[in-house]
């Protein structure tokens, strides 16, 4: 289970981390949506957006190694998934790869998917590297997402860590009792763990609820945040939005 990365890199000091989380979040969404919405084959525009992401990464002082590492995992999946596109899309055959025929239309879609994915993933990785879970939740609050969502995420964060601790303990205990042999046993173990996780998580939720009541909770999650968005961040976000919008829209107009 790999979510320990969440709190590892969120403390890089940079101009980007000095902006409020909500601005970082919106910036990420703008870039990701701008990239994902590019038309097929807009290579130049993809490059412009990729350059933009690279610049922001520099500004955010995210190490190149971290960027590459984080982008490569999900990207591998994108590549894997889009290989199907290469030959499932009819068009002019370009070359034969064994029994399958790769078409020009397939190549176009393959390349576009990967290009858009790289840019969007890059933006997302900058966000993870600069923004921790708690900050993200406060950004959701600033964005007026439904209270239900911010509350559940705010509580789920801590619950998740205690839950994963417990799951790891159960797994270790089971393994030490030699339950691990055979797919059948392993499957039973996994189902058992999931069921236990469910009951534990609800039991913990119940106890947490008591602890909340004990401290005067009356159905309304209070929040400490009063942080205002500063002008500089707003200008930065505005510039970014305009650049991305201009790039994406021009890609449609040029065609």
């Amino acid at each position, binding site marked *: *289970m790999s*979510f320990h990365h969440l709190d590892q890199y969120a403390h890089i000091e940079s101009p980007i981390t000095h902006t409020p989380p909500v601005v970082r979040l919106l910036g990420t969404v703008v870039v990701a949506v701008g990239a994902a919405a590019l038309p097929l084959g807009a290579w130049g525009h993809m490059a412009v957006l990729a350059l933009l992401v690279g610049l922001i990464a520099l500004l955010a002082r995210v190490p190149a190694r971290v960027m590459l590492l984080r982008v490569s995992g999900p990207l591998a999946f994108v590549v894997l998934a889009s290989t199907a596109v290469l030959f*499932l899309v009819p068009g002019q055959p370009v070359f034969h790869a064994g029994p399958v025929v790769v078409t020009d239309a397939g190549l176009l879609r393959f390349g576009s998917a990967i290009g858009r994915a790289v840019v969007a993933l890059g933006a997302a990785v900058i*966000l993870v590297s600069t923004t921790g879970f708690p900050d993200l939740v406060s950004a*959701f609050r600033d964005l007026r997402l439904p209270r*239900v969502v911010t509350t559940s995420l705010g509580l789920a964060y801590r619950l998740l860590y205690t839950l994963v601790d417990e*799951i790891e303990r159960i797994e270790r205990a089971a393994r030490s009792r030699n339950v691990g042999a055979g797919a059948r046993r392993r499957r039973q173990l*996994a189902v058992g763990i999931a069921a236990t996780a469910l009951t534990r998580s609800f039991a*913990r939720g119940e106890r947490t609820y008591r602890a909340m009541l004990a401290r005067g909770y009356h159905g309304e999650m209070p929040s400490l945040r009063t942080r205002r968005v500063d002008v500089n961040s707003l200008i930065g976000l505005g510039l970014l939005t305009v650049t991305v919008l201009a790039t994406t829209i021009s890609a449609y107009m040029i065609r």
Partner: protein
Amino acid sequence: MQGDRCLAHIPDGFLSAPVIAGAAVLSAAALAVAVRRSQSRLGEQEAPILGAATAFVFAAQMLNFPLGAGTSAHLLGGVLVATLVGPSVAILVLFSVLLVQALLFQDGGIAALGANTLNVAVIAVVGGYGSYRWLLALVGMGTRRMIASAAAGAYVSVVLVGIAVAIELALSGTLPLVPSLVAIGGIHLLVGLGEAALTAAILAMLMRAQPELLRRESPPPPVRRKWVYAVTAVSMLLAVTAVYAASARPDALEAASRRLGLGESVASYFQSPFADYTAQIGGAWIAAAGGVMVVFAVGFGLTKMIVRTRRNP
């Protein structure tokens, strides 16, 4: 890697701008409805239940369930959670999970969040949970029946996700509809088995270990059995007729959409850029899928109406 689960979490790069926007609008509307409905349902206990359910779905989606022969299954959990906390809360819980997965785990795209929400949170929960309640009304209450219905509901939910993903990819012009449906829908026909088995196994364990968790669920509406049977029979008949009509007249959908005023825009999405390919077989597929969904909606609505009239005559 997360492998097959990612199929249900579309990454960025595969969807076109109109699909991104359309799905976002649809899922935002569905979420708004879910927020309104969940408030009456949860009351005071809202916060801890939400937190617990969200943490669970998060953790469960990370678990790997070995199926043997080197394959493994993952849980999406929509129907499972809906049986515990009700569908509207389940939608919100799944949305919360998707949101964080997209932003912090790069699991599912940020721009594709709307589509992923529509598929995994809205369609899976509404369709899966709807089938569950329907089946429960058909077969009656009881532990085993409940587990079996939930498993079937879970299966339906995953298949619906597959169909939805396939349609979205086709609408985006990334894949032609038929190969998309066959490949993605087909995989989900298999993946759904895992979801069904896991949902059943976990529910069975819960019923033994902590039955009070499940009691949050109100019993299914006390509908007269024969009414449900009648509605189901009629729906089936309609579905079969629809599929037959569609396959007999491949352009049925186009004709229908033209009559409905959807005009070329929708139809052209279905066809472009491979008009002849989709028009021959595609129409039947769409009509079949669409027909069954429509029939389901009509049937479910009728069931609801019957329940209401029975309750306050």
